[in-house]
């Protein structure tokens, strides 16, 4: 049976991806010691030390991870703060001196045209060294994302999925799943050269035979370069949400189905990397410098919504100030977009490498869920992009029947939130589904 991509219509498009505003370094940066989930680094510098931009501030052995100094300045100590996921985390306080002096680059620096000749091991090593975090909701390291699953995992044998396959397709995702937060589109528009270099390196590292750049309204420069490299450019329509979630992009481009419940795109031989990570890799290879800044969309109810180039470690508060401050009474501040973003409760939280953007909602726009029983209208079934029956799953979860919910494919949900968006009874579908997943995994 043919699957149709359903989802919902979302007309709110992101800010102009070519216009980026530089924001001066705030007085104090908070460099969180956990830039990606499950990897907490130990500090390598002490209070009062003077550091340079690009210097290693903290590192961890296993799994390997490095955190670099975003700018030059003095370390003022270690404080406890929250990261944008709401978890407590230790952070180094760095007082910038405004000079932004770079440390001598020690690592490998390649010319743009040489990247294709690097070996896969070299690239992977470099990805590790640069401490690149796979940008977005996944929160694992980029190195992990581009290596094929090495061990034939036992749990796959029961599912009929072929195991331990090499990666044969590389997808560079220059589209964003949650408009108007559009960091990937911005990365592809502002730094197409770095994108090409990074993609070449990833092509080498993964050994992919097919490279697909997924973009929307790609700039001519990018189109030409993609053609020259012998890759494909696929345009996806951003008017429908959630067309750009990883499993759905993989399905649209390759017609392969990612087993969401227990697998990742690598399990079907696809590496899918967001443009932001690709650009960071490209810049890292050509300049030898780690990524210490990000183009962050600050959108929603702020006075000047747009793209802002911010140093990692900038507190969210400063980012909102740079965007002109709150418009109306502040209601919610989200790390990520309006459909999948996480609410922040402390604006002192620093930007980490995982944050896609900041979406601000004023108090008037807040909507609330209700505890009305499901009216069985089927709107969620017509909206679910992966073909679930969300009403049924949510009902099971509501009444604590988590095993039954698993029977009707609870674990295959991608948590896009379309069901809650269309629900006329305003049921908190995603919350119930997450409760179910949490309880199942905890038991």
């Amino acid at each position, binding site marked *: 049976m043919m699957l149709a991509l359903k989802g919902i219509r979302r007309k709110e498009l992101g800010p102009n991806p070519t216009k980026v505003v530089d924001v001066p370094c705030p007085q104090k940066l908070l460099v969180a010691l956990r830039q990606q989930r499950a990897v907490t680094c130990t500090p390598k510098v002490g209070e009062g030390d003077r550091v340079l931009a690009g210097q290693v501030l903290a590192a961890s052995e296993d799994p390997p991870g490095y955190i670099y100094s975003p700018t030059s300045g003095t370390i003022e100590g270690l404080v406890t703060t929250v990261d944008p996921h709401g978890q407590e985390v230790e952070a180094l306080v760095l007082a910038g001196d405004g000079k932004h002096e770079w440390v001598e680059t020690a690592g490998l620096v390649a010319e743009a045209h040489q990247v294709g000749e690097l070996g896969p091991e070299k690239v992977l090593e470099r990805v590790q060294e640069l401490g690149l975090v796979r940008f977005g909701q996944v929160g694992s390291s980029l190195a992990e994302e581009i290596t094929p699953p090495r061990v034939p995992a036992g749990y796959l044998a029961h599912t009929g999925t*072929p195991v331990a396959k090499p990666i044969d397709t590389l997808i560079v995702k220059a589209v964003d799943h949650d408009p108007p937060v559009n960091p990937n589109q911005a990365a592809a528009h502002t730094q197409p050269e770095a994108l090409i270099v990074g993609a070449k390196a990833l092509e080498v590292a993964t050994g992919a035979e097919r490279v697909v750049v997924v973009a929307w309204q790609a700039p001519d420069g990018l189109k030409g370069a993609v053609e020259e490299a012998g890759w494909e450019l696929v345009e996806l329509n951003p008017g429908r949400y959630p067309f750009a979630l990883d499993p759905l992009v993989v399905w649209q481009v390759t017609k392969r189905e990612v087993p969401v419940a227990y697998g990742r795109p690598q399990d079907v031989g696809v590496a899918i990397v967001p443009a932001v990570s690709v650009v960071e890799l490209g810049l890292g290879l050509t300049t030898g410098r780690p990524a210490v800044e990000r183009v962050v969309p600050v959108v929603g109810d702020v006075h000047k919504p747009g793209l802002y180039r911010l140093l990692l470690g900038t507190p969210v508060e400063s980012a909102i100030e740079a965007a002109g401050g709150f418009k109306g009474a502040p209601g919610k501040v989200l790390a990520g977009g309006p459909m999948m973003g996480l609410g*922040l409760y402390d604006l002192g939280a620093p930007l980490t490498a995982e944050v896609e953007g900041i979406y601000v909602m004023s108090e008037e726009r*807040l909507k609330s869920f209700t505890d009305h029983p499901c*009216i069985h209208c089927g709107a969620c079934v017509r909206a679910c992009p992966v073909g679930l029956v969300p009403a*049924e799953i949510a009902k099971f979860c509501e009444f604590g029947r988590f095993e039954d919910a698993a029977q009707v494919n609870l674990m295959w949900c991608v948590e896009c939130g379309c069901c809650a*968006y269309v629900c006329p009874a305003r049921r908190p579908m995603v919350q119930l589904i997450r409760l179910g997943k949490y309880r199942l995994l905890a038991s």
Partner: protein
Amino acid sequence: MSERLLTLSPPPHLLGGRTIRSMNLETLCAMGPAVGVGLYYFGLAALKVLVLAVASTTITEYLVCRITGRASTLGDLHAVVMGLLLGMILPPGAPWWLPIVGGFFAVVVGKMLFGGLGNYPMNPVLIAWAALALSWAHQMSAFYEPGALGEVVASPLMQFKDDIAAIESFELWDLWIGNSAGAIGAVGTWALAIGGVYLVIRRIVPWQIPFGVLLGVVVMSLVAGYLDPNLSEMGWEGLGEHLTLAWFHMATGGLMIVAFFLAPEPVTSPMTPWACFLYGLGIGCMTVIVRTWGAPVDGAYYAVLVMNAATPLLDKIRPRVLGKGVVSA
């Protein structure tokens, strides 16, 4: 820690504009044309029945909420929709107490005893209709011919039941524009279809249900027509003439209001596309079977009740899940 208080909630942080209230409001608007046709042909008698039915459901629902100590659910307009639908399937000559008893029964037994909107297993309006039709069969067939109010006549469907040859005495055109004896809101076939198409376009009604009902009627009418010796004696030949039977079934009794308003009632109809289609198909087929071979005059309402009972079973037909298919390299 900054001092500002912010709201936290699980995603999504945006919600679509549709609520239960807006859904019911649009359904009421879609019923407008059919109600207008009923009032045009049956005048004050029809208005009396409709007003009493709506008043009965809303007041009963208010009282039930008061007595059970729940917050009033009148705001979602579901009681109004129920009342209006009930009034629409009653005959214009119904005595004053009939819609009142019906509305009370629909709300108390059909809806609130099960826990209110979202929990009842069968369409409460039709539960009430069935109770009335079984208890007061005589009053429930007080049909008037438009233009001759006060004079009880047999509806086209009753004449058809007595003698299938009666079908030749009706003008199909009159049946479709509503100029015939029948229930208040069910005679205006074209008006119901217009309202129904609006609901389908607005995606309040999944298109599969009305499509299934109408397809079922056509298919089963053809079967019934070709099997009936009377029709061949009357000289019916070819597909075109046999389809007349289908057009007749669609325009009489409660078929059109069932197809677009009663069968797709959200709580009691299935959710998934194929289940919706089969549910509609079952209703369409069963309607014609009862009308042709069964004992009751109109099978449309009973067909909905029977298929309501099958809804939990039909809901087991689930769409294919992305990621569970064959993973090909």
